[in-house]
């Protein structure tokens, strides 16, 4: 589990790097390159030792069964409908959680940057970040208490006479999504807010002046200009959702699993390291693929809005 969380963080870092360097680097001598990228060395060292090296050690594991080199693990995973259903479920949950984070987080970011009084901004930032100081386990436990059969929500609804029997909320996809959104929303808010801070307010006034309604001014000017933040936040949240283990495990119950749970099971319960490594690898490839798609979408959407969204 640890490895996979790190794996995804690494992937996120890499993609953010590739986002930042929109210009293709001109090839110079190796030394010149080294000199130019020296600020990256500490981070690269961390990445190599904590991400690339473990991955490199783990990957070969999945290509060897009983001392024989083979791709049987992968043909096994890809040929099994069960794995596909788990991959599909993981992607679906992560995507839904990401969209919800965006819908809930964007207004918060807008409030934070545009509407809050300057003196209170710091307080709102603290409120947004505060949940990150608590462990995911404790936060999932809190949702257990709220959503359970005899949880606070069911008790309240029963007492109010709105329902006759407790609702099944815990151990559903809905519970997992709620838990994920709750944990991930600060990442979305911070990503969008960082970009929104640099969008000139007078642009919205100019749009109003040129005949756009308040909503129109937002939709045609402010929102397109925050797209880089929206997309960066989206894939940060998406990648973190896809690799999260604790929340789906505690709130989703044991029956409907996500990829991270499968990996944990293979490594820690069944000690089937080759299969665990194989699933990890598949998850990594899926994540990279999605991030690649996001990168393309980002490039296209910026180019696209420039072309003629208005």
């Amino acid at each position, binding site marked *: 589990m640890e490895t996979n969380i790190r794996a995804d963080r690494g992937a996120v870092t890499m993609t953010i790097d590739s986002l930042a360097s929109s210009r293709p680097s001109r090839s110079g001598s190796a030394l010149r390159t080294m000199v130019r990228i020296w600020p990256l060395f500490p981070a690269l060292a961390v990445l190599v030792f904590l991400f690339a090296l473990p991955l490199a050690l783990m990957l070969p594991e999945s290509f060897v069964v009983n001392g024989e080199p083979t791709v049987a693990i992968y043909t096994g995973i890809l040929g099994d409908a069960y794995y596909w259903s788990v991959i599909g479920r993981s992607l679906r949950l992560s995507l839904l959680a990401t969209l919800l984070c965006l819908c809930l987080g964007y207004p918060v970011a807008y409030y934070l940057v545009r509407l809050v009084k300057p003196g209170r901004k710091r307080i709102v930032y603290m409120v947004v970040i505060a949940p990150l100081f608590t462990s995911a386990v404790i936060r999932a436990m809190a949702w257990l208490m709220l959503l359970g059969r005899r949880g606070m929500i069911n008790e309240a609804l029963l007492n109010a006479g709105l329902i006759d029997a407790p609702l099944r909320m815990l151990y559903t996809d809905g519970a997992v999504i709620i838990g994920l959104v709750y944990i991930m929303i600060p990442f979305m808010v911070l990503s969008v807010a960082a970009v929104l801070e640099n969008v000139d307010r007078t642009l919205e006034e100019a749009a109003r*002046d*040129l005949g*756009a309604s308040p909503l129109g*001014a937002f939709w045609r000017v402010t929102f397109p*200009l925050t797209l880089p933040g929206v997309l960066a936040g989206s894939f940060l949240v998406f990648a973190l959702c896809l690799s999260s283990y604790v929340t789906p495990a505690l709130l989703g119950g044991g029956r409907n699993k996500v990829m991270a749970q499968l990996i944990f099971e293979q490594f820690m319960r069944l000690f089937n390291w080759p299969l665990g490594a194989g699933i990890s690898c598949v998850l990594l490839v899926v994540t990279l693929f999605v991030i690649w798609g996001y990168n393309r979408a980002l490039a296209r959407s910026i180019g696209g809005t420039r072309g003629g969204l208005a």
Partner: protein
Amino acid sequence: MADTIVSIEGVRKSFQRIVAVDGVSLTVGRGEFVSLLGPSGCGKTTLLRMLAGFEAPDEGRIAIDGADVVSVPPHLRPVNMVFQSYALFPHLTVFDNLAFGLRRKRVPSAEVSRSVNGFLALVGLEDYALRFPSQLSGGQQQRVALARVLVNKPKVLLLDEPLAALDLKLRKRMQLELKQLQREVGISFVFVTHDQDEALALSDKVAVMNGGRLLQYDTCREIYDRPRTEFVANFLGEANILSARLVERGAPTLLEISGRRIAVSDAGEAHGALSQSVLLALRPEDVSVAGSAQEGVNALPAAVTDKMFLGNSCDLFLRTDDGVAVLSRGLDRDAFDRIAVGDRVEMSWKPTSGRIVAP
């Protein structure tokens, strides 16, 4: 001008406890170029933003083309604004920036293209339609900002120090272009500036503001020749302010400075009571240093404290016996050469040059 396009009546606006605009009334005629001139914080930008609809007045009435607009939101007002920062949309091309307003009004796209291309040609940017604002120079961005609002054919164009970000040379050129553009399109301009030269160069009328109040609103010539207050005299052009005693009202009005009789032919609504102290404003170019006293000319003894040759003007720095510093610019170059620092001279000016101003 009889035909009024903007009428502002008794407008007041305060932010928290600070009064930004304090009971301002003025009208702008159709096709007029009006400047709101004043130091920063004088309320000129707030007044402009109230015309655009970004601020609502606490009191008073604002009408554009006869219709009260106080409760009309910015996007429905028949005015457009050029922002100090230009506020060009960075994610849109020059063409799409210009088309923004027309598209909001659901103008058919063939007509949008025609209008936009027409106005791009007007500001000489027809080859830049597909560039993004970040790919343009400051002067080009300025022209895009102007074209973007003019293409909407507003009844009034509001400009918030649009030339402030340009360097001096470019600013001079843009001033000329702006003036020509205004004549060509025939739209009323309300132009906010803190630069008196710019206000003089561009405007038909100037409204001088300070501390939220409108001090004087008139043609450039009127304000320059007949400033009503010391602040106006100093803010629009340079002025020497001498303190005098009012001796007699009439034609001419008589004052006394250091025992000398001073005549002022047009005292206007002379401020102050008889034998009370009043302020006399003199433009530097009206003050000369006469060798011998001439008939019908006001004269005061003074000492030369400094002299400065500036090419197109010869500045003499004088000090009256009362210790008031006076700048004289009315000297020709030969006379200037004959005067040395420390000389005692008679500074002189015509009775038609002086103005009595309120403190």
